[in-house]
């Protein structure tokens, strides 16, 4: 049941406990206490809005950086990865298989800001071997949401 609740919240975090209760055949109190439990257990980490930066006229520059790092005895990649992930410029950070180790998503206000982050902060960290920075040019889909929404075709209002 928690899985189903989480899926519904993942789709739309704003759905009311009243609606969730009716969908899942639970009481409103049950839904509220389950959500509270999921939040306390850090299963639900945060709630956010997905925004079309262009339409919102946000001046943001996004980049994806492939980072090679040296693993350490005992901790492997964890200590260094954690250190990199803590920078506020970093929006996502993943350990990867393949030709590099970390895939780091960063965001800044200007190209220069992102470039400075890479050259002055990221690549100077002890243990970072190399970086390859790719700037994003256009967003087509963000966290499962198409940026250019399909135009809903005119549905018949009543049909057999």
């Amino acid at each position, binding site marked *: 049941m928690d899985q189903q609740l989480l899926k519904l919240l993942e789709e739309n975090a704003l*759905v009311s406990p009243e609606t969730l209760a*009716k969908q*899942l055949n639970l009481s409103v109190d049950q839904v509220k206490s389950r959500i509270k439990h999921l939040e306390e257990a850090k299963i639900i980490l945060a709630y956010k809005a997905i925004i079309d930066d262009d339409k919102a006229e946000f001046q943001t520059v996004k980049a994806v950086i492939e980072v090679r790092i040296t693993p350490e005895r005992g901790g492997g990649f964890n200590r260094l990865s954690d250190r990199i992930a803590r920078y506020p410029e970093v929006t996502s950070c993943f350990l990867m298989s393949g030709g590099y180790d970390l895939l780091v998503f960063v965001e800044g206000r200007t190209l220069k800001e992102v470039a400075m982050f890479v050259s002055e902060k990221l690549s100077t960290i002890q243990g970072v071997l190399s970086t390859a920075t790719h700037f994003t040019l256009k967003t087509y889909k963000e966290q499962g949401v198409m940026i250019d929404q*399909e135009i809903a075709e005119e*549905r*018949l*209002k*009543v049909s057999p």
Partner: protein
Amino acid sequence: MSVKRNAVVTDFVANHVRSIPRSGIRDFFEIVQSMTDVVSLGIGEPDFATPWHIREAAIYALEKGKTGYTSNLGLPRLRKSIARYVRQNYHVEYDALSEVLVAVGVSEAMDIALRAVINPGDEVLYHSPCYVSYNPSILLVHGKPVEIPTLAEDHFKLRPEALKAKITAKSKVLILNFPTNPTGAVMNQQELLAIAEVCQQHDLLVITDEIYSELSYGETHCSIASLPGMRERCIFLHGFSKAFAMTGFRVGYACAPVALIEAMMRIHQYAMLCAPIISQEAAIEALENGQSDMEQMREQYQLRRNFLLNSFREIGIPCFNAQGAFYLFPRIDQTGLNSREFAVRLLEEQKVAVVPGNAFGASGEGHVRCSYATGMDQLEVAVERIGKFVRSL
């Protein structure tokens, strides 16, 4: 002069076509269309767009220049997929190449099935409330429609006694549609066995319209064609519109013993030639790779059904827990209004469209059909407005 010409033009229309009444839905549709900001629970098709990989298969077919006719019966690869799908999910064995016909939706399949088997005056039985096309389709082939009313308190199931009571020497065909549009009713294996027995006793052919069969939320769906002795007296109709959200592709199919498919094919080849090749290509993709999309949509429908049903209970509108399709058929006669008055006033006062139950046969009076093939945001608004409306009565 023009009056006279109009009279003459009307004379051209065949008598039996002229006698077919206007659809109750059509009538209501025109009122709804004239209004703005309507939240509609009146729509009998999925609100989901066709899953992308299926649309992509259609695009690919176009790119590859697949733009011609197909075999009258449909693409062999599609028929093989259909035969496999029906075997796996409905447990009935049909020969892919001689016992499967791909049609332009179940609507066409139903029409050619009736045309293939009905002699003038033959009686065709069907349970009601039911899909709006059965009665006129029977009339168009000069058959005699025989309606078997089912009851809300019995969850709109067809019972053998009710069936027997309507059987005469002229009865030839029984049309079944479970899960049912508009009630969401379902029949389990035991209940269908009782019907199958009557069909065998009275030598009836069954045309079973299983278009909503994937959308069953309770017990596993059972097809009457899978019951002992029934395969030889069944035409199994199914399609892609509801389960795979492909209404606009217009593709469905019939499975039946070879003699019946052969008879249907004789009509189909002259009337339709074949179903559109692009839709057939998309249908192959749906059957081969569409299972998980279908399951996800079903899950959404089930959540919405729960939401709508619980909301009706909260408002105080009695409604049985329909286990199939994407409709609820709540009872509204306790409001003192009939189904048309209820629907028209709800539309005018709160701008919510539901379909009056009597559009689906006289036995639907006292109910309205509410489709939950619409997004949760719309359902939430609809429920709030219905609540306001009911409290205002």
